[in-house]
């Protein structure tokens, strides 16, 4: 599903955030991306979301070389990938239903289709009773579940999550991680960036470790 080859990303003059990283994540896998702050986890995720382009090397997702996508193709690619952020990135002026329904809406789903799909996902995540609430009326855990619902609503083949439990307490973190495990069990490839080793031990999946931009371990 994900393949990087000799991937490097340089900022400014000679400062490498990633250097010569080659890795493979198979379809249907659940992989942790870990390492200390500044290791390059977020940079790798930004490259995978095509928010940035690699300085050297290639990034391929589902066989597509991300560097070769036009801006419109990049947007189309993003619609096929679910992304979950540490700070949730929900639109405060829209309700839970509208936040989650945004992606189907821009994809042209009819109102009925959009509401049905959104409701199904919210129900699966136990948020159906909060669908008319605004993000600021929700707890941190609920906000992150809404963000996960938004990432899932389009039934993506790949979910990328950048420190999704970074702003949550340990119980909620565990709950969110279990959700990712359930999502993976349905066949979706999941790549979660985290430095929470306890959660990784709890879930017990392969981990790719970065340090100072280098791939140091994959276990």
């Amino acid at each position, binding site marked *: 599903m994900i393949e990087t080859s000799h991937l490097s990303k340089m900022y400014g003059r000679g400062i490498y955030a990633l250097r010569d990283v080659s890795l493979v994540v198979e379809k249907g896998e659940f992989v942790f991306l870990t390492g200390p702050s500044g290791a390059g986890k977020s940079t790798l995720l930004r490259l995978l*979301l095509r*928010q940035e382009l690699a300085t050297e090397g290639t990034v391929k997702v589902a066989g597509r070389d991300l560097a070769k996508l036009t*801006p*419109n193709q990049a*947007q*189309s*690619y*993003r*619609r*096929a*990938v679910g*992304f979950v952020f540490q700070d949730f*990135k*929900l*639109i405060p*002026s829209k309700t839970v239903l509208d936040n989650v329904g*945004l*992606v189907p*809406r*821009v994809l*042209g789903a*009819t109102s009925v289709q959009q509401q049905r799909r959104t409701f199904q996902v919210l129900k699966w995540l136990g948020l159906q009773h909060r669908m008319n609430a605004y993000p600021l009326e929700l707890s941190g855990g609920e906000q992150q579940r809404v963000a996960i619902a*938004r990432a899932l609503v389009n039934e993506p083949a790949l979910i990328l999550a950048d420190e999704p439990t970074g702003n949550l307490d340990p119980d909620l973190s565990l709950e969110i991680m279990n959700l990712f495990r359930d999502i993976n069990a349905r066949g979706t490839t999941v790549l979660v960036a985290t430095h929470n080793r306890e959660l990784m031990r709890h879930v017990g999946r392969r981990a790719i470790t970065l340090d100072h931009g280098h791939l140091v371990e994959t276990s």
Partner: protein
Amino acid sequence: MAHWFTYCLEEAAASLWRQRVSVVLAVCTIAAALFVLGGFLLVTVNLDRAVSRWSAAAEFSIYLDDEISQEQRVALNALLREHPAVASREYVSKADAAARFTRDFPDLAAGLADMARNPLPASIEVRLNPARADGAAIEAFARRLAQTPGVADVRFDRQWLERLGRIAAGVRWVGWSLGSVLLLASVLTVATVVRLALHARRDEVDIMQLMGAPIGLLRGPLVTEGVIQGGAGALVALAALYGVFAVVRGRLLAVLGASADAAGIGFLPWSAAALLLLVGMAVGCAGGYLAARQVR
């Protein structure tokens, strides 16, 4: 496509409402620019109408010698009949000319009656076909008529009409020049207001971009905002223009009386009003697009 259109309209409407104060200022700026442009357009349209009306009424008056022979009269009539610019002609005898003089200038009529013989010449009044009355060719024709045997004089009142036409063109040029500068300022004003709207919605736009919303959908509401502002500005300008026009026309009619020329003063035709509306929307669209280009 319809859902994109609905989405753009809804988002634009919500954004315009959120920053209604700046939007009102932008609409006023566009309205002021289009009011100036529309004002010049209104003046030139009415000048053009007047020129056209007077041109249609333009005529030669061919004064005949008292001693014109029958052959000369026939030859003159043949010359007029064959010329394509001649729409119609009317013979005014010496007696008809005296009757008109008496009717138009009653105070002087007694003097004419005291004369031993009628001094007024017979004439042929020639009405021209405006579509075929090319300026240079008509002047040449007038000169030729003046040299025709049996013709005492030819009076042709086209020159001042051409001068009026040139004035109308000058006014139109000044209007477009001034209007263009003001419209450019309007584009920049709209762009600034839309940029403010984008700034207020930056997080939302960034999130939608990360979710894979098409670029067109991200830019669409911003361009729509501009188009709505431009359209609203144009409608305000047209309303203000009509108000001012009604007042000025009323005063002109009071001064000039209900003469044909004063009564002929009219508001912009539908096509010109629609053009002004389109220009306003285009200005708004350009401003919106200028701001929307920041989303990439």
